[in-house]
């Protein structure tokens, strides 16, 4: 994965966390992982489609999530209910959205999907042949880990879903016997 894709996400995360929960962020050690991700208590998954494509995941422990959401929404959360999940998803949405705006400034246009929230730790999430860059962001509320499995294509080139289809050929005119 191209390292130029990393900074927009880190900058966006730092800015959004500063604005939303007024916390300073310390970046931990960046690592590159090829194996699948073992989920933390809560993972927000957002796909990117366009000139930059792939998946971004924000993982954290339950307490971190509750602390962040309580601060963002201005009310105390003690469990990961649907409102808390939705708050966390929105945070992922805002960070990813801001990062894609930075990409567009450099000529790479992409759009983000609706967020999906996965709860339950110890589950494997595989991005298949996309290696992931893993960036832990330490805040006073706990650690938010950003996982980026992204690639780029040339700006303006059409998005081609078949690009990923290497093993099975979709029948163009299906015949059902």
């Amino acid at each position, binding site marked *: 994965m191209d390292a130029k894709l990393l900074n927009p996400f880190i900058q966006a995360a730092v800015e959004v966390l500063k604005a939303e929960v007024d916390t300073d962020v310390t970046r931990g050690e960046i690592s590159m992982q090829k194996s699948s991700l073992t989920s933390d208590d809560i993972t927000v998954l957002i796909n990117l489609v*366009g000139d930059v494509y792939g998946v971004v995941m924000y993982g954290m422990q339950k307490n971190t999530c509750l602390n962040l959401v309580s601060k963002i929404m201005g009310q105390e959360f003690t469990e990961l209910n649907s409102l808390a999940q939705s708050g966390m998803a929105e945070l992922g949405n805002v960070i990813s959205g801001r990062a894609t705006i930075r990409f567009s400034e450099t000529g790479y*246009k992409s759009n983000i999907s609706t967020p999906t929230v996965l709860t339950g730790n110890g589950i494997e999430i595989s991005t298949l042949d996309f290696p992931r860059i893993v960036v832990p962001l330490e805040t006073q509320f706990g650690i938010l880990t950003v996982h980026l499995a992204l690639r780029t294509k040339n700006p303006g080139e059409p998005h081609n879903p078949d690009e990923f289809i290497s093993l099975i050929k979709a029948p163009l005119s299906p015949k059902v016997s």
Partner: protein
Amino acid sequence: MNVKFLNPFVSSAHDILSLEMHELVERGDLRLDHGSYQTDDVTVIISLVGAVDGTVFYSMSKEVAVGLASVLMGEKFDSLDRLAQSGVAELGNVITGQASMKLAEAGFESNISTPSLIIGKGATISTLEFPRLVVPLTTSIGSLTIHLALREGLQSNLKTPELEVPKVDFLQKGE
């Protein structure tokens, strides 16, 4: 969820599975689920972005995943290794890709994301305020369930940044 988004997925899944497995695939009863989804052994997640917005899951047991990968890739798998995993993800990709072409023909152009695979039973996946339409499909290998949490991509533009999505005319592809 808009039910007109359902048929392209059901017919694509049916066509592709029938073609690969040389048998007819039966559709079970549909249901609309407002709660979150408890994962089965294997779940493929693919998002749609564009005139149709949301997420599609394909969930199945490990046995079915291994069986489908074996049929699709023409080699016998004993476990869900990396290659078998990518086979299952590609199946989700092919079904979603074909469904998105059908949706584009009906005037709803959207792009599909790369697939992600979730392995492990009992986690909870929430699509937040999107209800899911659940479609069970039965094959001789076992059952595969499609979950559709989709809507017309109008409101979601408020949440996503105002960026141009590259328009693709799937019908003209390859010309």
